[in-house]
């Protein structure tokens, strides 16, 4: 059985010291080991951003793609090979600016992959512009006088888009984050996980402390029932999205692959790709 170390690779990440992304990296590696995955059976598809580099720091199959398109690529990988554990990861800009369309549709399509948003409320790689998750009033390089747009509420959006697994973690709470990712991977269907992952270089506002002071840990709320969609939305609204834990989960919802007519358990990639002479003749008959 593989361990945490098997998912490590001998490369120094080019993230700034103190960047929240280090925790996300560790949490994924730990979760993979905890579940008992083998590195070769995992594929991590990432977007472009500081966050996007993550696929190159995990020892597994890794695909560092283009800005905003990690999700369709990840879905393609899974459709090709159901046996793989497929993770998609990227920044808040990646998933909620340029990639929003794919995020919403991946959620409702419900292919069994796990999506980790590394949410620092800012554009890190391009040096500090506002992201759709930047707070109203946030002063960034592109909003020097303060952002005048309402931020996207990823949890509400995911729930309203029909997600079967919605969670939020915090880079400052590695244990919970690891657990959430584990559960996300185990969930059969699309898992949406937003992670507050502070950018220490460009977001001087939404710092570790800022989050720590505000976050409500749902794991500590005994009364919270994460199987009820309406309640889940209420809870999120109530705390202005600043919660961590698994917010909503519907274990009954069938994943896409299981609903595809005649889609086999054996991965497509392992099936015979030739068609028989008989089948070919059959196909031609229609045109006679």
């Amino acid at each position, binding site marked *: 059985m593989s361990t945490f170390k098997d998912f490590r690779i001998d490369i120094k990440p080019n993230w700034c010291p103190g960047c929240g992304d280090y925790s996300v990296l560790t949490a994924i590696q730990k979760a993979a080991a905890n579940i008992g995955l083998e590195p*070769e059976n995992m594929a991590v598809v990432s977007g472009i951003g500081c966050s996007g580099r993550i696929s190159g720091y995990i020892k597994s199959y890794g*695909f560092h793609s283009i800005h905003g398109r990690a999700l*369709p*690529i990840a*879905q*393609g990988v899974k459709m090709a*090979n159901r046996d793989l554990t497929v993770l998609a990861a990227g920044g808040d800009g990646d998933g909620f600016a340029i990639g929003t*369309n794919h995020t919403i549709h991946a959620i409702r399509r419900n292919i069994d992959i796990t999506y980790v948003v590394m949410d620092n409320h800012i554009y890190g790689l391009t040096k500090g512009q506002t992201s759709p998750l930047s707070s109203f009033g946030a002063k960034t390089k592109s909003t020097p006088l303060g952002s005048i747009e309402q931020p996207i509420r990823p949890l509400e959006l995911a729930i309203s888009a029909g997600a079967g697994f919605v969670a939020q973690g915090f880079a400052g709470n590695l244990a919970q984050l690891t657990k959430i990712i584990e559960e996300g991977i185990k969930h059969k269907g699309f898992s949406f996980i937003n992670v507050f992952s502070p950018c220490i270089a460009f977001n001087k506002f939404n710092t570790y402390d800022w989050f720590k002071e505000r976050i409500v840990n749902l794991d500590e709320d005994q009364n919270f029932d994460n199987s009820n969609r309406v309640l889940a939305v209420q809870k999120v609204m109530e705390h202005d999205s600043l919660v961590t834990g698994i917010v909503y989960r519907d274990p009954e919802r069938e994943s896409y692959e299981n609903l595809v007519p005649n889609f086999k358990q054996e991965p*497509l990639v392992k099936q015979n790709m030739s*068609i028989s002479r008989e089948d070919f003749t059959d196909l031609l008959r229609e045109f006679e």
Partner: protein
Amino acid sequence: MVNQLSWKVGGQQGEGIDSTGEIFATALNRLGYHLFGYRHFSSRIKGGHTNYKIRVTTKSMKAISDNLDILVAFDQETIDLNSGELRDGGVIIADSKFKPVANKDNVRLLSVPFTEISRNLGNILMKNMVALGATSALLGLSIESFKEIIEEMFLRKGQEVVDKNMEALKQGAEYVNKETNGPLEELRLAEADGKKRLFMTGNEAVALGAIAAGVRFMPAYPITPASEVMEYLIKKLPKFGGTVIQTEDEIAAVTMAIGASYGGVRTMTSTSGPGLALMQEAIGLAGITETPLVIVDVQRGGPSTGLPTKNEQSDFNAAIFGTHGEIPKIVIAPNSIEDAFYDTVEAFNLADRYQCPVIVLTDLALGMGKQTVEPLDYDKIEIDRGKYLGDQELPELEGELYKRYLFTEDGISPRVIPGQKNGIHHVTGVEHAETGLPSENPVNRKKMMEKRLNKINNIKINNPVIINKSHDEAEILVIGIGSTHGAIAEAVSRLEKDGYKINQAHIRLIHPLPKDQLKELMEKAKKVIVVENNGTGQIANLLNMNFGMIDKVKSLLKYDGNPFLPSEIYDGIRGLI
């Protein structure tokens, strides 16, 4: 008695014009005639004139005909819009209900009570059958030729429905027979060879080729005139354990295809111009990550939404030059429906062999045009996945990562896929080292660029140019690409008869161009005339870029939304020489 004939049916969209044409064509196909169909439709659902023109020949003839022998009209608009095409002595068969007026001299108008007969038989929808009956009387076809088809269509609704339809045919035929006293000699079709052929569209041929090549997954977004590729696979893939995902947009379609291909499955997407434009960024990703990717682009009238239901060949530039930065890429264009099948199979082999994007360019005329093709040959289907290492061939990992981008002599690195124990590696759209990890090192960069760009230089494919070379030194070399092949061939054979020394070259491999072959042909010709369905002469420009024979290269262009007729090419070439 004639060996060829041109027939057209027209009316309002939604009135069953299409199926009238289909039934007519299927019957003739089963008798062994060669058919070439072209549908004219507007960008709206119900209403708006539509027509279906079918050329029937006893020998293979791969172009739409210049003029028209018979026009079947369900409304006056059909006559008004199409009678100009009728040859002297041509016949209009029209529903007497709308009191048809011929609007042209030297044509014969047969007013047949389509509506009345069908209403009397209890179902006005059968007026199409009456029209077909009327047609067969003129051609001297037995209405029995339609029986099988009518049974296939209606038997599940009961024998009575079949009988009624046969009766409609019969009455239509009888009515005309009475008027004309039997088939008109100049319309009576010579007997066909009776051989089995397939009547299909280019889109269907492409989709069939994809299945034969092993495609089991297709992400795509609907768009005219490409949707039928996707729709055929939607119907058929489940039988082979595969599936189609209708994605949220073309960017998702192409990137999902890249993901699935990276995952090891043969996959494709299909689109038209606007979708191709949206895919440009991702095509670059496939290029730099050396991921096989097949995109079928069924061209339509551009730019922008342009003329979505009309024909054009104006995406060559976008297909060859559209991505930012520089990648290896292959662009091929089938020149017939038969080719569309084999070329699609070939496209997948090329994509795997050269590990790069392959764009298959067709157009509306080829994609939606329906023609008879010789039975497709199962034995010609070959699957070659290129340098693809199975678990057995894959040595134990030496370093931490497998060198997916190993520098090799031919620039192609052995491929592995996720799930293989010793193949773990990284893939990125950023410049990278052999392991796939990002690298900004200028020496590596230069090597990687050269590896990628040069690997397709020695590309080998059968018949990269379809050559019809009757002369060693030609007065004229006519060059075209794609769906214009048949029309050019017809024009060329007429020009030969006129005494011109003329060769024809039809380019199948558009990028990288088969330089040696083309160069020789062009050098040995006095004039090169490039026939293209666009407004700027994109292929001519491409030839100039590669061969520099600017002074001898002339363009024959058409960009009004319609494909070339053979006569337009004939006239055009005569005008240029």
